C-alpha cells in the first residue's frame, strides 16, 4: 500500500524533517505514527497525500509513484485516500449531509449513488439522525465523525489521519477510535499520526516512532514508548 525508500524531506529553510526513511505498510494495516512535535510526523503524513514532495527517495502510495507523478494525476491519487485532520475542516455553511456529499460532488460521482453512500457512511459514524445539522450545532467529537464520514464516502483504500483526537476529550477520543477500528476491519488501511499515549498503548497496533527525522522504532504491536 505504502512504500517509502530512502525518503528525505528537507524544507527550504534547511530543516531536515525526514532523513532517509524506509517504511513498508501493507494493505489492511493499522499504523500509528508517534513522536514529539516537530519530530517529522506531520511531514510523513503530508508526503502520503502529496501535500509535500520528498526531497529525495522513492514513494509509492496505493500503487502510484508519488514522486514522479504528473501534477494532473494528483487528484486521482487523492481519490484513493481519505484524509482527516485535527481541526475537522468542515464547511460551516453546509449541513452534515452536504459536507459529506461535497466529497462526492467535487469528484463528479454519479448522483444516483450519492444519497445511498452518504447515508451509509453517516450510519457508520452514527450521525444519520443529525444529517440536517450544521457543524456549529455539533460537538467536537461529532464534527470529527462528520469529517471521517467525508473521508470514507468515496471508499478510499487508505485513510490518513493527522492527530484526529487531538482536540477531543479521552472518552470522545475512544468513540472516534472505535469508528477507525471498524473502518479498518472492513479492509481499509489506516495511518494515524497521534500524540495520544493511552490510545496507542491500549490498541496494540503497529507503531512507527519518529525522532529527529529518523524512524527509531517500528513494532508490530507497539506502545507509545515514552511520556508524551
Amino acid at each position, binding site marked *: 500500500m505504502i512504500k517509502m525508500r530512502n525518503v528525505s524531506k528537507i524544507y527550504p529553510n534547511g530543516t531536515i524533517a525526514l532523513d532517509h526513511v524506509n517504511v513498508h505498510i501493507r494493505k489492511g494495516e493499522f499504523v500509528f505514527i508517534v513522536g514529539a512535535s516537530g519530530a517529522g510526523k506531520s511531514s510523513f503524513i503530508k508526503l502520503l497525500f502529496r501535500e509535500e514532495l520528498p526531497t529525495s527517495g522513492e514513494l509509492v502510495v496505493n500503487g502510484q509513484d508519488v514522486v514522479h507523478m504528473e*501534477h494532473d494525476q494528483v487528484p486521482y491519487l487523492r481519490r484513493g485516500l481519505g*484524509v482527516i485532520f485535527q481541526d475537522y*475542516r468542515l464547511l460551516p455553511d453546509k449541513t452534515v449531509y452536504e459536507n459529506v456529499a461535497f*466529497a462526492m460532488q*467535487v*469528484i463528479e460521482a454519479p448522483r444516483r449513488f450519492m444519497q445511498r453512500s452518504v447515508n451509509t457512511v453517516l450510519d457508520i459514524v452514527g450521525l444519520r439522525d443529525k444529517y440536517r445539522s450544521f457543524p456549529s450545532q455539533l460537538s467536537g467529537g461529532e464534527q470529527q465523525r462528520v469529517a471521517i464520514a467525508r473521508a470514507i464516502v*468515496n471508499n478510499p483504500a487508505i485513510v490518513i489521519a493527522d492527530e484526529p483526537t487531538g482536540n477531543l476529550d479521552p472518552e470522545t477520543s475512544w468513540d472516534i477510535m472505535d469508528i477507525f477500528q471498524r473502518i479498518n476491519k472492513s479492509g481499509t488501511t489506516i495511518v494515524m499520526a497521534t500524540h495520544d499515549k493511552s490510545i496507542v498503548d491500549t490498541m496494540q497496533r503497529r507503531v512507527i516512532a519518529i525522532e529527529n527525522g529518523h524512524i527509531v522504532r517500528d513494532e508490530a504491536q507497539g506502545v507509545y514508548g515514552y511520556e508524551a
Partner: protein
Amino acid sequence: MKLRTSEYFITEVAHSLRRNTWMSLASVGTVAVSLFVLGVFLILVLNMNRMASMLESQVQISVYLEDSVSDVDRRGLEHDIRNLQGIAHVDYVSRDEAKARLAERLGDQKYLLDALGDTNPLPDSFEVTVTQPDMVETAAKAIGEFPGIESTRYGQDVVQHLFDITRLMRIFGVALMLLLAAATVFIIANTIRLTVYARRKEVAIMKYVGATDWFIRWPFLLEGIVLGFVGGILAALALRSFYAAMAAKIYSTLAFFPLMPQYPFMNYVTLALLLAGMAIGATGSTVSLKRFLKV
C-alpha cells in the same frame, strides 16, 4: 461536463456573487463603462470609415478643357477617355451648363454671378467617374496627358484626410481600449481574489478529496465571465439608446449624412461588446487564479 456539475458551478457562482454584492456591482459597473466608451469609439470609427469609402467611391474627376478645343476634337477626346481602362462614365458639361449649376449651388448668393454679366469664366469640362475608387489617381493622370486638357481635379485629398483622421481615431481608440481593458481586468481580478479568499477552505477540502484543478477553477472563471457578460449587456443597452438618439438628431439636421443604419449594425456592436465583456472577465479571473489559487 456533467449536468450535475454544471448545476453545482452555477449555484457556486450565484452564491459568491451574492456574497460580494458590492464588489460584484463595482466590477459590472466598470466593465459597463469601459465597454460603453469602447463601443462609442467602435461606432465612430466604423461610421467614419464608411463615410470615407462612400466619398471615395463617389469621387469624380473633373476634366477641364482648354478654350481652343473644337467640338470635333472634344468628341474625339470624349471617345479617347471612354476607352481608357476603368472608366465608368464620361459626361460632357458645357460652360453654360456649368454656369447654370454654379448659380443653382450658390442659391441666395446668386447675385455674385451677376457681377460677371454675360461673360462666363468657366471652361467646358467632362465629369468622369471610374469603376474602382483606387483607379481615380491613374485615370486622372492619363487623362491629363491628352492634348487640349487644361487640368484635372478630383477629391482625393479630401478622402485622404478623412482616412487619416479615421486612422488616428482608430489608433487612439485602440490605445484607450487597451487602457480601459487593463483597468477592467484589474477590477475583475480583484473581485475574483475576494472570492478565492472567501472560498479558500472549500478549495483546500476540494483538493484533499481529489477534485481536479479545472473542477476547482471553473466556478471562479465562470464568475469572472458572468461579471463581464452582465457589464457587456449594460453597455450594449446604453449604447443602443445612445446610437438611436444620435441617429435621430443627425438625420433631423444632416439628412444626407451616410450614418450606418441601426440594424443590423447595432446587433453586431452588441455582440462584439458581449464577447469583449466575457473575454475581459475570463482574463481577469485567470490573472487572479494564477496568482492566488494554488491548485
